[in-house]
């Protein structure tokens, strides 16, 4: 069995120290595979003067050239014939450009093992049937985003009684329909089966806010869970503090903070980050995080803010073993009261989004939002 697959079969998802050697071995394998099978990747490593053989020690991982997610938005790069890819997907393309990804069987198998282990650890599985409310896209052939696939996958953690979506597919494309979800929440609160919600934090927040404004208060059945994932996207300006969010959920839906779970992941990094009961994203064994200086791209000490570099040997079909997100964050190594020793990642936000508007010609296209002069 390859070290890659072994890594994803580990039973303890947050035992990072123990898994360092295996992680390195899996990265060596993946790096050699990409170098051999992806000409674009090989060229980049050659240009940067790096050979897969240079990955000798764990510490060498920081020298492995990383590919920015921006690169995947400009280039579709694959390390396998496309027919071997069972699933093809894109990122959600908040900034208008999408990464094109494809995943082969073994990569997906590893992902599945990971989800089973994490789901067990975080007690996401339940045999009790539930109603699902997805604050995201209704599945459709035309929608190839990873987020629509993962939120659909989410509805298999517990048997589904029903599925409702905030973004419903109509003949004119996707339409936001929060009222339907509101009605369903009211209806389900009077029944005995738990409710699970999943999806974009922004839509969840808009829904809760609207219910509060309309004076709607319900208490969802015991065992109901609110999950969030996919980031704030274009609603970054509306972002609220987590505490405020939890208070609102409690007020409107009667959900306890411990029943609110947040996920983090990316189309270019298929490792699932699940927050602990203290709402920290501990780095699971399948992944490593390096925070890099915004000017020099050198790793910064724990606790300092920088660009988030994510590594995982999970996927064979695309060279995404070390990717640079366009998010700022920092890594914490302080002891977490939840008892997990693995460091945790704090995501601070997208680079370049600031409340600025500009008038230099065309700059409005470069920077998110704003109609400038």
């Amino acid at each position, binding site marked *: 069995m390859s070290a890659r697959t072994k890594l994803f079969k580990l039973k303890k998802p947050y035992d990072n120290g123990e898994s360092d050697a295996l992680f390195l071995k899996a990265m060596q394998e993946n790096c050699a595979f990409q170098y051999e099978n992806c000409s674009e990747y090989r060229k980049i490593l050659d240009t940067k003067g790096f050979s897969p053989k240079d990955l000798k020690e764990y510490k060498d991982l920081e020298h492995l050239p990383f590919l920015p997610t921006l690169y995947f938005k400009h280039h579709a790069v694959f390390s396998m014939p496309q027919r071997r890819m069972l699933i093809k997907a894109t990122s959600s393309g908040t900034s208008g450009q999408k990464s094109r990804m494809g995943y082969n069987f073994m990569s997906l198998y590893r992902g599945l093992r990971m989800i089973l282990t994490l789901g067990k650890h975080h007690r996401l599985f339940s045999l009790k049937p539930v109603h699902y409310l997805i604050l995201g896209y209704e599945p459709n052939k035309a929608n190839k985003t990873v987020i629509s696939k993962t939120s659909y996958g989410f509805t298999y953690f517990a048997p589904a009684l029903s599925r409702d979506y905030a973004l419903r597919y109509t003949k004119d494309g996707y339409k936001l329909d929060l009222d339907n979800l509101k009605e369903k929440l009211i209806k389900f609160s009077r029944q005995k089966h738990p409710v699970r919600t999943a999806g974009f934090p922004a839509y969840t927040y808009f829904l809760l806010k609207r219910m509060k404004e309309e004076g709607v208060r319900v208490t969802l059945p015991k065992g109901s869970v609110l999950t969030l994932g996919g980031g704030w996207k274009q609603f970054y300006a509306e972002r609220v503090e987590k505490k405020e969010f939890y208070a609102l959920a409690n007020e409107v839906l009667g959900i306890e903070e411990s029943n609110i779970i947040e996920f983090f992941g990316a189309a270019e990094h298929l490792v699932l980050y699940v927050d602990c009961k203290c709402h920290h994203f501990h780095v699971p064994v399948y992944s490593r995080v390096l925070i890099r200086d915004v*000017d020099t791209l050198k790793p910064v000490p724990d606790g300092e803010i920088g660009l988030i570099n994510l590594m995982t040997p999970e996927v064979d079909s695309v060279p995404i073993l070390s990717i640079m997100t366009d998010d700022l964050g920092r890594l914490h190594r302080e002891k977490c009261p939840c008892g997990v020793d693995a460091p945790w990642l704090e995501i601070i936000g997208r680079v370049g989004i600031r409340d*600025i508007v500009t008038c230099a010609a065309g*700059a409005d296209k470069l920077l998110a939002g704003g109609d400038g002069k």
Partner: protein
Amino acid sequence: MILMHGEVIDSNVEQKYLEGLYEECAKTLVVKESISTECVIAACDQLYRAAMRGEYDEIALPLLQMANLTYERFLGLARLFSREELEYKCKTELGDWYGALPALKNGTVRKRYPLGVLFHIAAGNVDGLPAYSVIEGLLAGNVNILKLPTGDNGLSVRLLSELIRFEPKLKDYIYVFDVPSAETETLRVFAELADAVVVWGGDEAVAAARQLAGVNTKIIPWGHKLSFAYVTKRADEEALYGLARHICETNQVLCSSCQGIFLDTEDRETQERFGERFFELLKRANAELGKADIGMRGKNTLRLYTDSLEASDGRRILQEDGVSVVIQEDSELALSYLFRNVWIKRMPRQEIVERLKRHKGHLQTCGLLCGFEEKAELAALLGTAGVVRITGSEMSRMIPGEAHDGTYPLREYSRIVEID
């Protein structure tokens, strides 16, 4: 939010506000109490004095802090509203006889009239600019309908309400509507009843305005512009450092901000040496002024790193402390990555007109750094190419009486009527 007839209404735009708007505007234009330039100037002057007394500090200070501007700069901007500056502006733009034009030699009387109704589609990059656009419309005697930019912070409505407080006659000349750009039906109502659409924004905004307005409606675009520096080997160190400071101070987000530098040379080696020299100056200015926002630096670092993986066009990137200089092979005028990222390209003076003229309508300021004897020749070439403002290293300076993108707004907002 809506401001009409001097009242602020906290509501969305509804049909009832739009009905009869055309008739109201027409009536305003014929009533005996039509406004004079003098009464607008007097009201603005009161506004200016109130600002000097610190009456708007509570709203201005947080905005200044957000935009990283000094209080002195605020007072400088406030001065643009003073009687002295506005009278000078009117004289410069409309001539000494802006009140009453002398007759033609055959005895035909000439009168300057307002266009009538102006519909301003404002932009949000400079706080208070939407209000200033309306004031220019008022100076020429027009009724003004202002569409606020998305995310407006309320400053414009506040300023215009104050103006009406000082001069109640203005209340029927100012309408402000907070309409999203997507509500084209409402915008079309405004465009149809207006004599001209004054649009602040990029090519897309201008194109959208042309779509809204009928062929008999004048479009006055104050659009996105590109600015750059032109440097010869005789440029002195002090001027170059001034340019580096300008780049760091404005973070290149203004129309007049320098995006890059054209060098008067054909030689790559000279270009490389200059790039290295300017990089040092940029680092110095950056150290003195403090680094840019961490998110913007991160964004530029990522873009430059991605470029280094992709580009094979002979570009050389110098990068440190969040500033960067990109030495490039082509001679195209282009937007930089902003936030202290500058391109350096070669453009011998004999190519200026041919290369830059293509960017018609998009050129604004050129910071010309050269020897004294060369200046007239180069300024003539740049002017011919379409540049409308030729400055030293202070490319974003504001001076009383300056034209707006090469033309005078008060003239654009007026008509000459001849009466035999």
